[in-house]
């Protein structure tokens, strides 16, 4: 059992490490592709050469990021099969389709269009090239859509049912899977967070140029576009975060309780823990700074709805474990005697809580003999790790509001045309580049740690989902991934810094036009 736990933990570490690395690149790709399309639209409308130069420069940085994003994403999909084979068998019927479509989107639509975008200058008309750039942006975001539909299923499994004959989940409604409210809200939140990431990235680099008095024309204009693009993205990402919290609050009360450090069910309207130090062992906050009455309207959009705390959720979990045990016992009978009508009836009566029974199987392999203490221990497992979820959530929210404040100032200075004179602001801007990346990683931690102890919420526990590799194999592959991906990060940083230092003048396309050059005929061939 200890070896199995270690393999599961190492599999989780490996997946978390690869996703956290991958998720450094993805939001920038999602956002920068849209921002590139925006800048190129301005080029096509105005015909000013400076906007062509801007598009070329930022697409160079986009290409570096895109290449490393694809490289780090490839291994993740293979990990479902290599490290999570039980999971893949159990939900492959549902999970496989969106994952395959994601691959098609990423490798056929997105990658083909990226090639045309980067090498199509001078070969395509301006209108056609703009269309290609929009297709890159659409392809990137649709690729994210399908992976988030797959993730949405893990968070809120809809459109499927467990088939006792095949011992796996099977798809019953593809449209329910695609229009899963969790997937919808998560996609929009993630995609717009990418827009915000790209805006902060472009703002930071443009500020760096203005501070150094280099490429001023390009920097000023890039700053303006990014500030306008970013301010709306910033407002949208905060609103959508609230929407996602509302959906999660209803679908995943355990995640909500962890996010808010809510140990006891408080009468409505409950207070919001601004800062707290959660102690999971004793199920209390060691210290908390609370804003009264705020939590209930924030997460339920009402003043009267009660929010269940950890105490109530553990009691519910214990009850559901007890209710699910007959389903698991019946399943064992059905495995040996598939036509046993009594066992099938017993299974159908208790199948809603089958997943919960699997939680206690960790401590009592023969669940029919599970003791009260074992059930209680399994019920305690149904609560995710509170402190990391609580703090990740607060880091994400604080970063979002910090960026909103920064962008309000950026837009203000841009509209007034005084940005070049605001030296202090230009000095701060490059230091703001890591903020959206930190927020993105923190957001991923909230979503995935908050789903624990499940790989598929209330259906399949994490402890049962992993492959049966040896500990040595897992340590070896984890070390390999961390080393390889660290090298990727170093390469990304090196290439980014190199091309940022070189600036737009040495772009190999001869695009060194100044802003004062005459306009090109609007719809002429490039």
């Amino acid at each position, binding site marked *: 059992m200890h070896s199995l736990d270690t393999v599961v933990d190492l599999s989780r570490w490996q997946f978390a490490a690869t996703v956290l690395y991958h998720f450094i690149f993805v939001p920038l790709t999602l956002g920068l592709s*849209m921002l590139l*399309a*925006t800048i190129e*639209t*301005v080029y096509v*409308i*105005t015909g*000013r050469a400076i906007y062509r130069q801007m598009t070329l420069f930022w697409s160079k940085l986009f290409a570096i990021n895109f290449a490393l994003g694809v490289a780090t994403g490839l291994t993740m999909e293979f990990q479902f099969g290599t490290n999570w084979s039980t999971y893949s068998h159990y939900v492959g019927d549902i999970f496989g389709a969106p994952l395959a479509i994601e691959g098609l989107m990423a490798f056929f639509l997105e990658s083909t269009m990226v090639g045309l975008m980067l090498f199509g200058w001078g070969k395509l008309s301006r209108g056609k090239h703009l269309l290609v750039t929009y297709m890159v942006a659409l392809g990137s975001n649709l690729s994210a859509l399908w992976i988030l539909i797959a993730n949405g299923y893990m968070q809120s499994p809809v459109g499927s049912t467990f088939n006792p004959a095949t011992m796996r989940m099977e798809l019953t409604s593809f*449209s329910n899977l*695609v*229009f899963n*409210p969790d997937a*919808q*809200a998560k*996609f*929009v939140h993630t*995609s*717009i967070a990418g*827009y915000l990431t790209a805006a902060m990235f472009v703002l930071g680099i443009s500020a760096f140029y203005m501070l150094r008095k280099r490429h001023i024309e390009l920097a*000023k*204009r890039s700053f*303006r*576009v990014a500030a*306008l*693009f970013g301010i*709306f*993205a910033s407002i*949208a990402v905060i609103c*959508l975060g609230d*929407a996602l919290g509302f959906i999660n609050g209803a679908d995943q009360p355990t995640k909500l309780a962890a996010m808010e450090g809510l140990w006891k069910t408080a009468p409505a309207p409950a207070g919001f823990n601004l800062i707290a130090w959660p102690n999971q062992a004793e199920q209390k906050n060691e210290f908390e700074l609370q804003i009264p009455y705020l939590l209930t309207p924030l997460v339920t959009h009402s003043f009267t709805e009660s929010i269940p705390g950890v105490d109530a959720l553990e009691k519910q979990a214990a009850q559901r474990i007890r209710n699910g045990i007959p389903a698991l016992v019946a399943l064992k009978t059905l495995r040996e005697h598939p036509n046993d009508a009594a066992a099938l009836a017993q299974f159908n009566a208790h199948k809603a809580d089958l997943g919960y029974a699997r939680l206690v199987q960790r401590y009592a392999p023969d669940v029919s003999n599970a003791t009260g203490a074992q059930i209680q221990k399994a019920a305690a497992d149904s609560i995710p790790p509170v402190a990391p979820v609580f703090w990740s959530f607060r880091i994400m929210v604080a970063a979002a509001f910090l960026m909103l404040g920064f962008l309000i100032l950026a837009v203000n200075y*841009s*509209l007034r*045309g005084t940005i*070049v004179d605001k030296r202090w602001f230009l000095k701060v801007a490059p230091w703001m580049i890591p903020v959206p990346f930190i927020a993105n990683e923190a957001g991923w931690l909230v979503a995935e740690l908050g789903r624990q102890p499940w790989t598929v919420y209330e259906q399949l526990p994490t402890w049962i989902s992993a492959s049966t590799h040896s500990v040595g194999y897992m340590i070896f592959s984890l070390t390999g991934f961390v080393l390889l991906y660290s090298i990727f990060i170093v390469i990304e940083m090196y290439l980014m810094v190199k091309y940022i230092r070189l600036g737009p003048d040495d772009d190999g396309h001869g695009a060194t036009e100044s802003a004062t050059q005459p306009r090109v005929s609007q719809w002429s061939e490039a």
Partner: protein
Amino acid sequence: MKSVLQFIFWLLVAFVALFLAIVLGERGAWYLAWVLGTVMIILIAVAGTVMLDARYEDDPLE
């Protein structure tokens, strides 16, 4: 002939847009919000940039 083909093309685009709006508005409200929100963000960023560019083009102080 070219104008007729262009008209038919944009008519088809309008039909697709309407179809998407109806289907997404009914079942995928957040997806529709993404489409509308993204279009709005791009339009405002483009319009604002073009406007500011025109404004500061004639302003030697900026």
